């Protein structure tokens, strides 16, 4: 173990240029597996969604799922790829029990889609991430390691394998190496995966949920001194959230810079991202170079998408996220830059749904991009997981619009909603919040404030209306903030005119 102190991120970037690359796996949401009719539903009893084909029993023959081929072509088209006129599946041979066949059916040198790109915007600047390939393969089974202290393989004495997931169609999207990003590399990585997720979601071919494993990301990172050739890359796996994509690239840049500056060479390895600490740890060490002995799958015939079919699929693509953003920015009356912030915060759909529930665009955006974004950021969760639904935000803003809550009270109500105390109405009831709209009670409080501050009252009588602020403050204090400041002010001025 070296004891080289880690540089700061700024320091690392000042001396080295990062090159990143991303490999993203997306589990397709088809009804059945890639090569057999077994269902793909999550959470079934182990080994109850298996058949001779996905168990690799002798004599069983695979037949490709048309819906999976179609979904992959649509993903390719949405990522501006060329669709191969002819390609084949290949066997990736390896010795590991997560595939009962002793190989994974994948694609090797003939991917279904090639040469695309995704543009991402950060602070008004566009970065193009080029796509090398999009190919189709099958997911593996799930292993449970028994006997180890932590449930992981280290120290395990045996593994228990469930093949329900084995054979579920999996699309792998590989970028070309992306150089020249400098300090922006971690942000671009996150923005790319976000955009990819949104594009795939718009196609309705996968639920693309990173936390649940239907979208998984491996991040390649290397560093080189300016002017030098690209450095040796490491591959970081186990990156299970959008936020982690950014953190993984950032921490790997810092780690590698520390080693390089200390004179240690980087060797090509697989590392695992640690969600708790935010850094990467060494993964498996390969004694021998990977040797998968790919060869064309003899049990499946070539895929040769008809050009007319591909054209039809292209014409039928839905509105893609970048187009949708431009449309919504106009509808909501905000700039492209503000729209990008909304997108980066993962707030587009939340705001859309809040508006659909009856709130103005400005009102919906205020909550999601303000108070709720702040809370999400503080607790390190995605905005969608902050604990408030669009319907609840709409109810809250509705109460503000009706004058039943002021901004300060609304924030308190929101706090209650986040804490799981129920809908805004329930929180108001339980916490005894809500603007005092009973004019009788307010008038009493106003009179009390006037009596307690005769000097100020005299000034206001003399026409110094600005002095009313002090009395409003006094009233707000006695009503514990539950009065509407505007109403209070009107009452004070009416009393002293």
């Amino acid at each position, binding site marked *: 173990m070296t004891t080289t102190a880690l540089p700061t991120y700024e320091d690392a970037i000042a001396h080295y240029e990062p090159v990143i690359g991303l490999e993203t796996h997306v589990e397709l949401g088809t009804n059945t597996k890639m090569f057999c*009719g077994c269902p793909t539903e999550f959470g079934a009893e182990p080994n109850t969604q298996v*058949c001779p084909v996905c168990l690799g029993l002798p004599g069983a023959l695979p037949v490709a799922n048309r819906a999976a081929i179609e979904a992959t072509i649509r993903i390719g088209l949405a990522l501006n790829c060329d669709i191969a006129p002819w390609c084949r599946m290949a066997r990736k041979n390896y010795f590991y029990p997560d595939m009962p066949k002793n190989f994974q059916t994948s694609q090797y040198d003939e991917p279904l889609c090639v040469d695309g790109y995704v543009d991402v915007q950060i602070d008004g600047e566009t970065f193009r991430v080029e796509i090398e390939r999009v190919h189709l393969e099958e997911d593996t089974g799930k292993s449970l390691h028994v006997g180890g202290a932590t449930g992981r393989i280290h120290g395990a004495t045996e593994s228990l394998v469930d093949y329900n997931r084995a054979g579920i169609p999996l699309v792998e999207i590989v970028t070309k190496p992306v150089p020249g990003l400098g300090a922006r590399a971690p942000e671009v990585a996150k923005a790319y995966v976000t955009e990819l997720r949104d594009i795939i979601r718009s196609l309705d071919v996968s639920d693309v949920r990173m936390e649940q494993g239907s979208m998984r990301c491996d991040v390649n990172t290397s560093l080189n001194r300016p002017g030098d050739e690209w450095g040796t890359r490491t591959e970081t796996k186990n990156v299970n959230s959008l936020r982690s994509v950014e953190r993984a690239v950032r921490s790997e840049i810092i780690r590698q810079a520390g080693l390089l500056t200390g004179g240690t060479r980087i060797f090509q390895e697989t590392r695992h991202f640690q969600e708790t600490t935010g850094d990467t740890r060494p993964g498996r060490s390969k004694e021998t170079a990977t040797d998968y002995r790919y060869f064309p799958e003899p049990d499946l015939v070539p895929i040769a998408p008809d050009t007319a079919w591909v054209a039809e699929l292209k014409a039928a693509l839905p509105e893609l996220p970048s187009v949708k953003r431009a449309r919504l920015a106009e509808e909501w009356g905000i700039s492209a830059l503000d729209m990008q912030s909304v997108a980066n915060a993962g707030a587009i759909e939340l705001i859309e749904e809040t508006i659909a529930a009856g709130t103005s665009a400005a009102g919906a955006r205020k909550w999601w991009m303000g108070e709720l974004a702040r809370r999400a950021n503080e607790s390190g969760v995605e905005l969608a997981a902050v604990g408030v639904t669009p319907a609840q935000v709409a109810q809250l803003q509705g109460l503000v619009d009706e004058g039943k809550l002021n901004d300060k009270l609304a924030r308190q109500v929101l706090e209650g909603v986040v804490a799981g105390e129920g809908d805004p109405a329930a929180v108001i009831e339980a916490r005894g919040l809500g603007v005092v709209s009973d004019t009788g009670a307010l008038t009493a409080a106003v009179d009390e404030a006037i009596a307690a501050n005769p000097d100020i009252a005299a000034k206001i009588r003399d026409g110094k209306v600005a002095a009313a602020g002090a009395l409003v403050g006094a009233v707000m204090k006695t009503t514990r903030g539950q009065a509407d400041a505007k109403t209070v002010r009107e009452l004070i001025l009416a009393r002293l005119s």
Partner: protein
Amino acid sequence: MAAISREEVAHLARLSRLAVTEQELDQFAGQLDVILQSVARIGDVAADDIPPTSHSVPLTNIYRDDVVTPCLTQEEALSGAPDSAEGRFRVPRILDEED
């Protein structure tokens, strides 16, 4: 020249986790060489106008519809396994490899 070396056979045996003795390496290398040389003779007759193929039948685009078909039961699925536990296939631990 041999189509496959003794070292390559040893490498393949390692990848397949097969315990092959020194004596067997000589034996298999010889046997595999005969097979490979025989298959390689196809190359002698393959002219430029014959494209390489991975299939004996000239078919493309054979697909199935995305419709669920019956599965095996858990009991059936595990019936051929050497060992099982908790509804899962039980296998020895695999060293130095992680999923």
